[in-house]
């Protein structure tokens, strides 16, 4: 019950803040433009594609690139959406007030996380509606699109969890956003050094977020990729909960 109350409260706050609407409007406009360009290119290449054996279809050339574009935007959008969740509340004193209602820290963290997750789901759905509408009238590879959607959804959920953890770590929303961005970029490129040295595979490659997302965007659903995302989400939320629980000791 109280978990739902925290989620509802956060959703209400998101709904009335201009930031969420501005981000949604600007990014969906950008994604729609990308989709139209991709679709135009795809239609223009029909003759060339018709002559190719195993030619990539609508899913490979339009739908998945659109999701990849959304994933790129998410690197910036998600830290902006999560930066005030706990950091802003700590700064204004409402976090202590929330804690004084007897809510366990995990309920506050999870409640807020679910609210952002719901917003991000709507963002993903609004983007996905574009290829779905066109795909319904063409020959989309639904399995591949489902895997890519799963990958994008897991990426958003992971970025949101990292954002919540960073927001729990500070009282300054801007620092929280910067931290989330840096952590995400580090996780995205952690194996770059190893790659440059010609080393592939191993722990660093497993640790890299890009490895797991790219498999899913290629339509490859592997349990180790799913486990990576679940672990990253769980670890981030546990860290956020521990940090919030520590507020009672630290203030």
């Amino acid at each position, binding site marked *: *019950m*109280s978990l*739902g*109350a*925290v989620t*509802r*409260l956060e959703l*209400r*706050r998101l709904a*009335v*803040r201009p930031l969420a609407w501005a981000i949604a409007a600007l990014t969906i406009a950008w994604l729609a433009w990308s989709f139209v360009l991709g679709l135009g290119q795809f239609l223009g290449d029909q003759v060339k594609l018709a002559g190719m054996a195993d030619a990539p279809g609508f899913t490979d050339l339009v739908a998945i690139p659109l999701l990849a574009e959304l994933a790129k935007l998410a690197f910036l959008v998600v830290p902006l959406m999560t930066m005030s969740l706990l950091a802003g509340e700590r700064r*204004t*004193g*409402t976090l*202590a*007030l*929330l*804690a*004084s*209602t*007897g*809510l*366990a820290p995990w309920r506050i963290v999870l409640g807020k996380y679910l609210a952002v997750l719901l917003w991000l789901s709507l963002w993903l759905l609004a983007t996905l509606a574009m290829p779905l509408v066109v795909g319904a009238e063409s020959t989309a590879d639904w399995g591949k699109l489902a895997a890519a959607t799963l990958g994008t959804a897991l990426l958003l959920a992971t970025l949101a969890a990292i954002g919540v953890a960073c927001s729990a770590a500070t009282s300054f929303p801007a620092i929280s956003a910067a931290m989330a961005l840096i952590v995400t970029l580090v996780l995205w490129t952690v194996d770059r050094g190893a790659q440059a040295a010609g080393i592939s595979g191993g722990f660093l490659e497993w640790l890299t977020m890009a490895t797991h997302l790219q498999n899913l965007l290629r339509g490859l659903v592997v349990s180790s990729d799913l486990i990576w995302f679940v672990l990253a989400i769980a670890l981030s939320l546990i860290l956020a909960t521990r940090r919030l629980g520590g507020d*009672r*000791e630290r*203030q």
Partner: protein
Amino acid sequence: MTDLPLLNVAGLSRRRAGRAAVTDLSFSLNRGEVLGLLGVNGAGKSTTLSMLAGALRPEAGSITLDGRDFVTHPGIARSLVGWLPEAAPLWPELSVEEHLLAFARLRGFSRTAARKSADAMIVRLQLGDLRRRLAGVLSQGQRQRLGVACALVHDPALIILDEPANALDPVQTGELRKLVRERAAAGAAVILSTHVLGEVVAVCDRVAILHEGRLRHDAPLHDKAGGKTLEATFFAIATGAGP
């Protein structure tokens, strides 16, 4: 109702910013009692209230609330404690009504019960005209009234008010005093922290004076220790000339 005090504080201590903010604080509070907590700035009042509200964990000592250990089970604050922190922190993007509904829901009320309770508080705190106004555009006095309403919306057994009369006009202050006495008459225990001695005289049954984190005076309001008035006692303690 039992004979046990609602709140029992024993040996409470807490450091903040590297110094002892509260040291070895002990007192108890019965249902229906209004305790005025006085002290100069930095005396440890807000730290004490934060611990009693469950927002801050004591480093030593115990807090027993309604017979249960509050330090290890801060979750019991959900239904039992209502807290108005200093400066009444609110969500600027939510309306007056949304605040009250949110707090009632966070305290575990059903949708219907939350609505009923929020409506009652809006009437009682005369917030009807402000019902749909965002907290971010309220005046300081209006914010304070909303903060009080949020602290009382779930009808708590222990009410903790930190400087509740801040920015209130004389009429609103009078209404607040009436409200505090009403709640006490209904069986709630109230702790009211203030700088204003008149506030304590007008509404409290008992007065506690904190100085440098220690409890230096705890007596019924009209108990003139050594024939001193409250004002004389307070100034004696605050200037270091007192007991």
